[in-house]
């Protein structure tokens, strides 16, 4: 952990101008990913998970959005404020991305082989033939049977799991150092999700790529990630090693996220208990007060929570929590 992180996001603020006023979609988000690490990011919709990914890729829609302050560095190189041309050289080459919906993020009029080869041609100046043979190799690497034949297939001829494999092959074709996977298995069945997770872990072991895994599924985090950041209303509210955060969550939101999901028990109790609920919904980002954004839904909130935003501070070693109550407990 002593070496500089491969990808470092520091105090990034992203604002969106809306009809209802300024929406701060990312509020001083800081994350580090080391080479070979899998960082999980969890939270409900609208918590800023995908926006974090887009800001790293330099894809925040501008206007209406804007990276107001902060710094994102890849191996020491600053990405915020970089020209479009230089960013294009990094996107797809040093940072690869897998999107949630494998149906809409592939181009229906090109064969999947051509689409994988495209990034190799552009980023590595490979000739079409070499690029195509790399594409076939990538399809083999993601365990697609009859890779040569499949490379000539169009996206609609493949199943959902196959398409997601193609997306992974495409993202990894130029051997990126960072792979951002935005809900890569949400649209897939459980058995296919398991295949994709196995594949991502195998590929990561072989290449040492750092992976940022965005998901809303705590189970996926437990199985895949080394570290986890929990986001709520544009802020990181808890961060730490996966086993620590999942076994001893500090922030009431993290606790809620873990307990409100009906987890599959190998030996379910005969009596059924009512599920824990997090009352209410995620607040509109234009209507955040000066206190903790989670306070209105929190059953542990104290007076201080509604008046002052809690900073993200250590509650135990490298386990960080942005919660006044948890910090009080830790100080005791």
């Amino acid at each position, binding site marked *: 952990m002593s070496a500089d992180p491969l990808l470092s996001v520091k105090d990034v603020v992203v604002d969106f101008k809306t009809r209802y006023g300024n929406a701060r979609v990312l509020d001083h988000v800081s994350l580090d990913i080391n080479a070979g690490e899998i960082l999980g990011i969890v939270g*409900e*919709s609208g918590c800023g998970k995908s926006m974090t990914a887009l800001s790293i890729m330099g894809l925040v829609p501008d206007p209406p959005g804007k990276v107001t302050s902060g710094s994102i560095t890849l191996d020491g190189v600053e990405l915020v404020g970089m020209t479009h041309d230089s960013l294009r050289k990094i996107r797809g080459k040093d940072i690869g991305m897998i999107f949630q919906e494998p149906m809409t993020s592939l181009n229906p009029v090109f064969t999947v082989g051509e689409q994988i080869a495209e990034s190799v041609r552009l980023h590595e100046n490979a000739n079409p033939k070499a690029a195509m043979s790399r594409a076939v190799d990538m399809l083999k690497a993601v365990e697609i*049977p009859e890779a040569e034949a499949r490379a000539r297939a169009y996206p609609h001829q493949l*199943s*959902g*799991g*196959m398409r997601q494999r193609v997306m992974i092959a495409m993202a990894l074709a130029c051997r990126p150092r960072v792979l951002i996977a935005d809900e890569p298995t949400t649209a897939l*069945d*459980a*058995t*296919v*999700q*398991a*295949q994709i*997770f*196995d594949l991502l*872990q195998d590929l990561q072991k072989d290449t040492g790529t750092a992976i940022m895994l965005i998901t*809303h*599924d*705590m*189970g*996926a*985090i*437990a*199985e*895949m990630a080394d570290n986890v950041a929990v986001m709520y209303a544009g802020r990181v509210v808890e961060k730490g090693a996966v*086993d620590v955060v*999942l076994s001893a969550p500090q922030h009431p939101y993290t606790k*809620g*996220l*873990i307990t*409100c*999901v*009906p*987890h*599959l*028990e*190998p*030996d*379910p109790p*005969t009596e*059924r208990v*009512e*599920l*824990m*609920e*997090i*009352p209410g*919904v*995620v607040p509109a980002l234009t209507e955040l007060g000066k206190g903790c954004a989670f306070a209105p839904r929190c059953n542990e909130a104290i007076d201080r929570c509604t008046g002052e935003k809690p900073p993200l501070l250590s509650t135990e070693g490298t386990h960080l929590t942005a919660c006044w109550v948890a910090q009080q407990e830790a100080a005791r």
Partner: protein
Amino acid sequence: MSDVAPSADVLENRSLVVEDLKVHFGGGKTLFSGNKPTVHAVDGVSFTIPAGKTFGVVGESGSGKSTTALAIMRLVPVTHGKIALGDTPISDLENEELRAARHRFQIIFQDPYSSLDPRKRAGDIVREPLDLMKIGSRAERDAKVAELFTQVGLRPEQKALFPHQFSGGQRQRLSLARALSTEPDLIVCDEPVSALDVAIQAQILNLMAKLQRDLGLTYLFISHDLGVVQHICDEIAVMYLGQIVEQTDRVTLFKNPRHPYTKALLAAVPSVHGNKRDRRNRVRLEGDPPSPINLPPGCRFASRCPMAEAQCRQSSPPLEEKATGHKVACFLV
């Protein structure tokens, strides 16, 4: 009315019996030449839901679970088989008889965004079934709508809002209110919480459990999420390619799964209690299910089954009771 628990003879009439249900699409001749392929979406499904209980159907996409739900609702043509809700033979009804019986069985869909009319006010959406069924007088219908809103945790003054002004969870509450408006005996829930955020799922699941306790409803609950099914269902059927491969109560299915497909499905679900090392030991399924057009002659799972033997590829195993209340369709258990 609805706050009072229903009497015993009403409850009696609330059990659902499905016998050898088949739904096939396609078939027949094409315009120019040859036969249209037949898709065997549901191929011989039988189960019984006792009154006031929740029956879960799980399976992956393409397993036929949603088609089963739609067939019971009579929203797709039933190719073969019997469906009876209490003394009403749903599968035999046609036209006006069917329409009149529809107040007894209602459905909630997966996507709360596309299943509510965006141009209708929330109150009118919930009221529409009452108007169509001509239940009560105008004033009674208004009172009923207000009562339904409270029952599902919405405020009666929200009646004037349009669907886009509600969050996903609130919209699913609206769908529930609409389904409840005709005082049905059976509610078919087709992935009712899959499109919702995790924190909102719990709210809706608790609400559904409460409504069942208060009103004695029978639920058919379709889902791909095994955690949710384990939580809410009394009995569960696992479907694969249009057939039930295993069926038993909620405790036994998870404690002692017997069909290789059920085992693989359970193992595929990531667990918060697990860790990265555990997952290497799990049963791993290769490939995708075969096409429901060209079905293999033997067991439909044989091509992906880690245990398959020669007989599995020749004849298809029947769904048999292997232990009390535990049915499995596999030669090897």
